[in-house]
């Protein structure tokens, strides 16, 4: 690793400061700023360093600073025929999308955001730089702290620099739409990149070899489409895939046609109304409390944000202030037009 990298991470650590340096908040692109409750206004804002440190194309990994936008990273990766399985909401940073952990519309094909992170250099609540994980695509050396960081909303440590797994750009991709039953399609098609449904219309994204995309398109019975639908917002639900068919039912269902877009086979639902709060086991709440206590005993990192609140969960987390209603992103801005 270059000394310039170390310097940028150390400078970020100095900016975060020691345990007694007061409440502090890590800011990325503010694309999902309200998730998990708003940060208290007394928190001093800091920004992680930006820039791509090393793009190891032949290893299919990239070392990048957390303040880099996903769009910038994607542009650099596209030059070597690769991409990264992170959502590229307009202005979203690598550190930000990892902290929130919400996937983009290609989750069905790409898998969850949590599987992308290989190594992280983070700044702790007392201003130290800590390494979690390792730079190789496979690694079981010690506790998997990287998994803990994804979705932690910057409440345990602030991410300064990461190593991510990249993936090859597919040679072809195509959006389709029509009125075919999405639940039959998700079974019949082999590993589609996305299947979306608003209660009436079904959208499918296929990727892979052009001949396979053509054959799967024919199998789907759908027509070509420009891209995914506009997503209703601002709420994001987390369901089991098998719970989705009930969304399209009569007026008694929580959504109703046109009021939601569901990610079929995944269970994420983009909706215009909040999800029903989910109960959380008290033991899980207690583990959250203890984990926060060991990593940030003074509660200075992103005060006001809580991972359990982000998911619409009711777990009895005690906070000084009433958590705000979880917000979510309103649109998916990744360029769906292909490489």
């Amino acid at each position: 690793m270059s000394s310039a990298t170390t310097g940028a991470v150390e400078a970020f650590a100095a900016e975060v400061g020691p345990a007694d340096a007061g409440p502090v908040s890590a800011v990325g692109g503010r694309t999902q700023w309200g998730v998990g409750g708003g940060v208290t206004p007394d928190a001093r804002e800091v920004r992680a360093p930006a820039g791509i440190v090393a793009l190891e194309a032949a290893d299919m990994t990239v070392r990048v600073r957390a303040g880099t936008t996903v769009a910038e990273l994607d542009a650099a990766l596209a030059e070597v025929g690769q991409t990264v399985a992170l959502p590229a909401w307009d202005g979203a940073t690598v550190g930000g999308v990892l902290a929130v952990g919400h996937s983009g519309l290609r989750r069905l094909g790409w898998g969850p955001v949590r599987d992308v992170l290989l190594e992280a250099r983070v700044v702790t609540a007392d201003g130290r730089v800590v390494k979690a994980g390792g730079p190789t695509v496979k690694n079981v050396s010690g506790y998997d702290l990287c998994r803990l960081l994804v979705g932690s909303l910057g409440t345990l440590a602030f991410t300064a620099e990461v190593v991510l797994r990249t993936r090859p750009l597919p040679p072809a991709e195509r959006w389709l739409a029509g009125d075919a039953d999405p639940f039959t399609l998700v079974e019949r098609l082999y590993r589609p990149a996305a299947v979306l449904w608003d209660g009436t219309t079904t959208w499918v994204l296929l990727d892979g070899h052009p001949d396979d995309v053509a054959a799967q398109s024919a199998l789907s019975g759908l027509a070509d489409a420009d891209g995914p639908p506009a997503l209703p917002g601002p709420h994001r639900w987390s369901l089991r895939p098998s719970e989705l068919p009930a969304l399209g039912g009569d007026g008694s269902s929580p959504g109703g046609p046109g009021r939601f877009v569901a990610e079929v086979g995944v269970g994420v639902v983009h909706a215009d109304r909040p999800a029903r709060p989910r109960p959380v086991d008290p033991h899980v709440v207690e583990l959250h409390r203890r984990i926060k206590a060991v990593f940030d005993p003074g509660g200075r990192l992103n005060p006001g944000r809580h991972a359990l609140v982000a998911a619409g969960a009711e777990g009895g987390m005690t906070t000084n202030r009433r958590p705000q209603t979880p917000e979510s992103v309103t649109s998916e801005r990744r360029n769906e037009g292909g490489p």
Partner: protein
Amino acid sequence: MEDQRGRDPGALAADLRAALTPDRVRTEGVELGLYGRDASVMTGAAAAVCFPLTTDEVAAAVRIARRHGRPFVARGSGTGLAGGAVPVGDPVVIVTTKMDRILEVDPVDRVAWVQPGVINLDLTRALAPHGLHFAPDPSSQQACTVGGNVANNSGGPHCLAYGVTSAHVLALEVVLPDGSVTLLGGLDAEPAGLDLRGVFVGSEGTLGIATRIAVRLTPDPPAVATLLLDFDSVDDAAETVSGIIAGGLLPAALEMMDRRITQAAEEFVHAGYPTDAAAVLLVELDGLPAGVGAGVEQVRTIGLAHGARTVRVAADDAERALLWKGRKSAFGAVARLAPNYYLHDTVVPRTRLCEVLAQVYAIADRHDLGVMNVFHAGDGNLHPLLLFDAREPGVMERVHAAGEEIVQVSLDAGGVLSGEHGIGLEKRDLMPLLFGPDDLDAQARLREAFDPDGVANPTKILPAGSRCGDLQSVPEGVWV
């Protein structure tokens, strides 16, 4: 009779027998001896061994162990190679092999709930009628349990495209170190809160015991092609691996075997491996037919450009199974060459494979040890086997010295300590080679949050003193 720490083994056994059934609690010397070791070279000692059938019985065993001042160690089939299941500190060993039921298969959500003692291969066989499988396939899959896969975040040849165990576990019912039971993760798309599921996977039984596991099921691919490429030099084979990855292909599996292991495997299973080649590559591509077909041609072109002598494509399922049988039997085949072997497990960036392999051969030569390499080349996951005869005086010192040098050259190349076997006791004291004091402290904090009293599989993974004010002692009674 109380021991010097005021603990009464007789009362412990009586309480365990009352909570389970008398026949599922063992305290006799011979059986305790059996459960004093796993597939590593370390040996410990258990105070009692019990075989629960249910979550409640696991929780009861944990609480009884605590009440009697004992730690507890979870154990599956004992195939672990890093000493993760070796009992340290006179613990209660909780064996999950009788919890071997597949509880539910849900083909719509593509998830199966299983008990921890289900054998990995049994699960995949049971899923076959649904056109689904459990992707992690360690070489020990005929014997290892899904619970053990969770504890070690196990890999296998097909983890290259599909990811290791962590990517295939959605939720875990666990008994926490205080004996309480909870659910980590969930079957919904984005379960609430921190990814406690993710940190539990790979924690080697130090954060609790998984008692029910929801595994993600992967659809069987419509098309599969398996290729065997053989080379006159290990370097050419390694360059081919880098060429395939750099070429934008993501094979389902990409395995390499050197001459000695190829010969041993061929004599053992007669897979038709070329025994005069310096190295062979086993490449599997899967997916839709056109993509697989194009991939086969791309692999062929890259292989031939790097000096492949022949490129054999398995003609049918039977031939493909035979090619894989050779690879999966490789470790068993080694028994024909030497009385003992020590299997290592490190990972290097895939672009550094060539140079690190050359160093591995040089290290073995320097220590006058035979070495064979059979490994997950696509992941950069090396598995050098050092061959020796344990009856030879002083040989273990050479084996351990060579092993540490192999770890060091892997780390020097930007690699890590373990790709799929875990840290356990074997590599615990090597952790400072990869992590600084602050890094280890962060890991110790996580462990403390789950297990403040240090009762769950103590002394594993982290060296003593990892946490400020750490009271963890050097393991007593462990023989290497």
